[in-house]
Each structure stands twice: as structure tokens, then as C-alpha cells.
């Protein structure tokens, strides 16, 4: 039976194709996140500030609550991505991308609390597609520092309806916003066909393709992702 806690996937007629499309979308957004620090600190901060403004417009209730929290910093650290996000909550709400080395984030000391987990699970959690306690019980998510701060952040975001971060990010990327719905409709079946074709390839070639894919989506060596 299908794991009931597996995040709900984008709406497509074939659930398996939907899950595959969601994985593709997750990989794509992780790759996009990996590119952010390469813009330089000023440009990446400006981009993330724009994203926050857009999210605040779309989710006013949650963002009012985030601004009403005491000033604090939460490091959101995907263990399988080259970048972590430092979110400042409170009146000075902001978001910064920090490069993540093999041994974690150097600036983690600035955070009052840290949430760590696989990128896909963190994205599901931020979008309210999955239950944070269940992830914690299964040890897929680890937290340290100020537990009350993490709980307040989690509950605030989970209380928001229909958060779709991938679509929100795409909407500030111009043409991608128009392409995304088409991608979502078609990515699953197309990826199914690619996967079927891939199974016919000789193993060395298949492994080579997998290495290239890992490089494209920014997977860290040895992260197990």
C-alpha cells in the first residue's frame, strides 16, 4: 500500500507519474537554489527579498505572524543541497542563501535554531504537504537550538493554505511561470517514458547519466541523496 505520509503530488491522472513529476520539480528547484549564491551576496539577497515580498502578498496571514514573532534566526539546512537558507523572523523578516560545504554551513553559529533534512522533505514540510512530527519521529528531520522557535515557525507555515513554493518561485522568473503548468502536466508521463528507455541502456552508460544528473541538481558527494 502507498505510504499515506508520502506528500501529495501535483494533480495528474496517473499518481505514479505525478510522484515522478514532483521529484523532477523538486530536483529542478534544488538546482535553482544551488545557483542563488553564485549571483553574489547583493544580487542573491535582492532576489530572495523579492521572493519574500511575493510570498507575503500571497500568504498575508502567515507573514503577518512571522513578522509578529520575536527577532530570531532559523537555519534551514537541506543536507543534500549545496545551499542552506538563513531565515530571520520578526519585524526584520529576511532570507539569505548560504553556501553549504561538505561539513555544513559555516555561518550556522548565527542561527538560534537549525532544521536539517533532505531537500525534498523540507520543501514538502514548508508547503504543508507532510507532517513535521511524523518526519521527526522517523528521524528524517533533525532540529537543534530553540525548539519553541522551530515549532512556532512550523505551525505558522502549516496553518497556511495551499502554499506552492515552486510555483511562487517560478512566478518571479518570468517565462517559467507560463511554462510550469505545462511542465507539471507533461513531466510525469515524459519522465516515465525516459525511465523506460533508460532501463534498456547498458549499465555503464546508465551510471554515467546518473552522475551527470547528480551534478546538474547540485547533489553533494556522499550526501546519500
Amino acid at each position, binding site marked *: 500500500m502507498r505510504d*499515506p505520509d508520502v*506528500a501529495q503530488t501535483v494533480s495528474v491522472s496517473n499518481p505514479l507519474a505525478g510522484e515522478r513529476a514532483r521529484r523532477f520539480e523538486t530536483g529542478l528547484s534544488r538546482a535553482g537554489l544551488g545557483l542563488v549564491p553564485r549571483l553574489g551576496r547583493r544580487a542573491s539577497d535582492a532576489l530572495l527579498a523579492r521572493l519574500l515580498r511575493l510570498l507575503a502578498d500571497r500568504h498575508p496571514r502567515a507573514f503577518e505572524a512571522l513578522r509578529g514573532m520575536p527577532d530570531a534566526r532559523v537555519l534551514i539546512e537541506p543536507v543534500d543541497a549545496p545551499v542552506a537558507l538563513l531565515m530571520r523572523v520578526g519585524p526584520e523578516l529576511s532570507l539569505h542563501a548560504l553556501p553549504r560545504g561538505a561539513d555544513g554551513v559555516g555561518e550556522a553559529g548565527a542561527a538560534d535554531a537549525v532544521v536539517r533534512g533532505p531537500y525534498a522533505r523540507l520543501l514538502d514540510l514548508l508547503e*504543508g504537504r507532510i*507532517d513535521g512530527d*511524523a518526519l521527526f*519521529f522517523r528521524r528524517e528531520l533533525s532540529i537543534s537550538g530553540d*525548539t519553541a522557535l*522551530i*515549532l512556532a515557525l512550523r*505551525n505558522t507555515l502549516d496553518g497556511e493554505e495551499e502554499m506552492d513554493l515552486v510555483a511562487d518561485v517560478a512566478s518571479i522568473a518570468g517565462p517559467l511561470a507560463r511554462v510550469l503548468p505545462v511542465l507539471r502536466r507533461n513531466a510525469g508521463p515524459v519522465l516515465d517514458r525516459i525511465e523506460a528507455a533508460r532501463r534498456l541502456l547498458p549499465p555503464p552508460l546508465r551510471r554515467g547519466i546518473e552522475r551527470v544528473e547528480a551534478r546538474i541538481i547540485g547533489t553533494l558527494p556522499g550526501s546519500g541523496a
Partner: protein
Amino acid sequence: MDNFELICPAGTPAALRAAVDAGADAVYLGFRDETNARNFPGLNFTRQDVADAVDYAHARRVEVYVAINTYPQAGNLGPWQKAVDDAARLRVDAVIMADPGLLAYAAKRHPDLRLHLSVQASAANVEAIRLYRDTFGVRRVVLPRVLTVPEIAKLNAEIDIETEVFVFGGLCPMAEGRCSLSSYATGLSPNKQGVCSPANHVRYEQRGGALASTLGGFTINVFGEGEQAGYPTLCKGRFVAGAGAGGAPAYLFEEPTSLNAMDLLPELKAAGVRALKIEGRQRGKAYIAAVVRAYREALESFAAGRPVPHIDLQAMVEGGTQTTGAYTRAWR
């Protein structure tokens, strides 16, 4: 034969809509303060949220209950009485309470407001339940999670108000409303401030591959590498028994586990239970949608006389284990 009512939790407006849409008959929630036993950061409802929740639920013929189930502090009755007044004003369908003084206030000031007795009252015998019914007009009692199914059947045979029992979620194995374990460790009470293991007293530490949870500076559990974790509550902590004992820490009261009584629907129906309650106002809307949908499916099968399906909720449970708790426990 009347069908069971399915009573579902909500910690946020989004969770309430998830519960309603997944098939709840009633949703219970709390205000954003110490008047309810899930007074956690970022959780619960403003007065306006409750007004919106009532509109949403009533439009879909779903009821809304408000839990005002902590004990007021002497000399500071205001927040609790205001919670009762506001619940009545906001047209909720019932309030869930434990404190006799507050029940008296509600019965006198709002005679049309339906009163349910919270599990926090720990009313587990005929005399106690009759007292609450006769004195305050309580219409339903939420039974503590310490009774076997035969004991519930015996109780129902002797009382004439509805009973509601927990069927899924976190398990409190203590005398609810009386437990002071968390208070000793943190100075804050689940029964007065609504915080069992308050988050600002909880810390998690990685110790190699192990995960340690601490409460008020006390290490209360260490989960080995790959071992599923549980809530940081003392009743599910590991202890070394005996002064100076050198033994390995072990569970003293209860292991991290979740209640799941889906297989006991026939027995609970035969025992005269009216309503089934899902625990978890602190959980995310994904949990609420999955668990409520599963129980709705099970109840529909049961009502139609079909076998209750086995629906896998393993991914949702604390500590990676499920139990039927006291319902089938042979020892006392």
C-alpha cells in the same frame, strides 16, 4: 443503530478545513492562550479564526467544539470565563471543560451551551460522571485512556450521558489533569498553563548517531541510531530504576507509541460508545487529512456492515509503534 461520531483535532484554520474536508463530524480546537491544553507556539485560533471556522464547518454540517480544558488559576479567572463567553457568542456547538468552577460558570451564564467533560477531568467511574451530569448538566464525557473496553461497557450501562473515547494518536498514560511530571521539570503545568513539555524547555542534541531529548535540562531519552523517536514527555522517558542502580535506562511508564483502535470498532460500538476522538491538535494538516480520511473510510465500511479495512497509518505514529492501549490490556 446510530453511527459513531468522528471528532477530529485542529490546531490551525488550515487544519480545520482539512479535517472537515476529510470527513469529520465535529472538529475540536482551542483559543490562542493558556485556556486549553495545547498552548503551543504558533498554534490555535484567534476569536476571528473561530468565527470563520464555525462558518466553514456549519456550512458543511460539521460541528465545532472549543476546548477550554485547563484549570483556571486562583485569582485569575478572567481568561477562562471570557473564553466560555466568547465560545457561546461565536455559536460553537459545545465546549469541552474540566474545572468544576468553570463548568458552574458556563452552566449558569450560558444554559443553552452544550457542555462536554474533558479527558482532563479524569472522570472514570459512575459516581464522578453522575456528579458532573447532575450538577452542571454535562451531556458527554470524554473517557480517560486507562479503561478497558469491558470497563467502558459496564460504565455505559450505568450512566445516561454520551461517552467519547480516543481512538488514534498520542497516548497519555497518566491520570489526566492531575499529572505534574512536566511541572516538576519545567515549573510550567500542563493543567494550568496548557503546556506538557513546553517547547522552550525542550532541547535536542545529536550525540554521535544518537538523538538526546532534554526537558528543563534533564536528559529524558536517548534514541539510538536508526531508532524511531517520540515526544519529549517524561511519561515516555527512559529512567534508571533504583538509587545508584547501574542498569540501562528503560521505559518506566510507557514507551513512545500511538494509540490506534481502528480494529476495535465493533467492540466499542457494542460497549455503547457514542463518539470517537482523534488526538493531535499539535500535528500538521497532512496528518489530520490522512488520519481523518482513514477513519472516515473505516467508519463507512463498518456502518455498511462490511469488514473494517486495514488502513496503514504507520507513517504517522510516534516511536514507530501502534497500540490498542488500555482498551485490550489484561493487567491493572
